[in-house]
């Protein structure tokens, strides 16, 4: 999967993953990779700016924990983040449906 193509959708994907419960950055990356069957595999350092930006936007909040014996930053969705996730999920479905129906009406390997 082209990492440029992934970038535009990273916010939605990260929100969706974090909505499953408090998670640290490493966990987000792991789940992103696992749930995409290994397709979404990005330079791991690039996920943190996304998490920090989403937090700054009020969509995520964090808490520090030391249950692992190290200081660990755990992210969770805020109410605003939850609302944004619902909204973006809906937007994505509409987009995919629209693209699908365009592709169906005009079968792709068609030569004009």
């Amino acid at each position, binding site marked *: 999967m082209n990492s440029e193509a992934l970038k535009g959708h990273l916010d939605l994907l990260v929100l969706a993953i974090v909505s499953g419960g408090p998670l*640290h950055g490493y966990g987000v990356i792991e789940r992103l990779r696992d749930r995409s069957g290994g397709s979404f595999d990005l330079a791991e350092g690039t996920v*943190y700016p996304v998490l920090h*930006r989403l937090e*700054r936007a009020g969509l995520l*909040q964090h808490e520090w924990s*030391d249950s692992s014996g*190290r200081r660990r930053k755990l992210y969770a969705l805020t109410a605003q983040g939850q609302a944004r996730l619902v909204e973006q999920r809906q937007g994505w479905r509409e987009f995919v449906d629209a693209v699908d129906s365009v592709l169906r009406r005009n079968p792709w390997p068609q030569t004009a």
Partner: protein
Amino acid sequence: MAADSLIDEYLQVLGTGMRGRRDRADLLDEVADHLHSAAERLEAVGVDPETAQRRALARFGEPRLVAGLLTSVPSKGNLVTLFFSRHLGATAALAAVLWAVASVAALYGFTDVDGAWTSDRYLLSAMLISAACLVTTAVLVGMNLRATGAFDGSTIAIAALGVLSAAAALVLAWAIIFWLPLLAAAVTWTMARARRSHAGSRTFVLVLLVAAPLIGIASIAVTLLGQFAEANLEFAGWALVAGMGAVLIAALADLAVRLARRVSRGHAVPA
């Protein structure tokens, strides 16, 4: 350990790339946790420690580049938040010293231990206790901020309890029933929250979780006993103040030492 230093070296370089970021220690802690988690995961499947660290670092990205990415998002905390969090160690050390001095001063200010009590002694001890309460409150606020990253409702309530206790101690230091339970409540509340966060050790969090409420309740009991039994309980009052002081000194010193050690281990690179 040569293998261990790979991640440390990486963090050093990353740290120099994040100069000027007040929340650098937090950023580095977050990256450190990631790198150690990744390396441990690889080691668990049989990769040797050094290779595991190399791979974890390679996957994370070139440090200068990552530092640039991380610092491209402005830090969330405002100046006040960062101040409390950044100077937590020094504040804890100051609070420990103040409690030590205040406990001794209270012996001479609350009781006539050497037969030469003066009201000046009492006033001095009251001021010292009030200062100790105030600085301890700053530590409690710092611990809350480190755990939550922002002034939330509970942090503000804890700060209010602490400031009230300092004010009450200044005006009515002898009446421990007014200020000691307030301070005990602020400490207990913070410790209940700190159980999940890193600041302070687990042992001291538990000790304070038990000791602070007990001392708070005892200070009410002793005062009521003094009222009804008309007993002279000034030594008991002093003992409770000193007891609270002793537990806090131990916990605050532990916190200060831990934070100082964490800085010297290279998690926060000198600017």
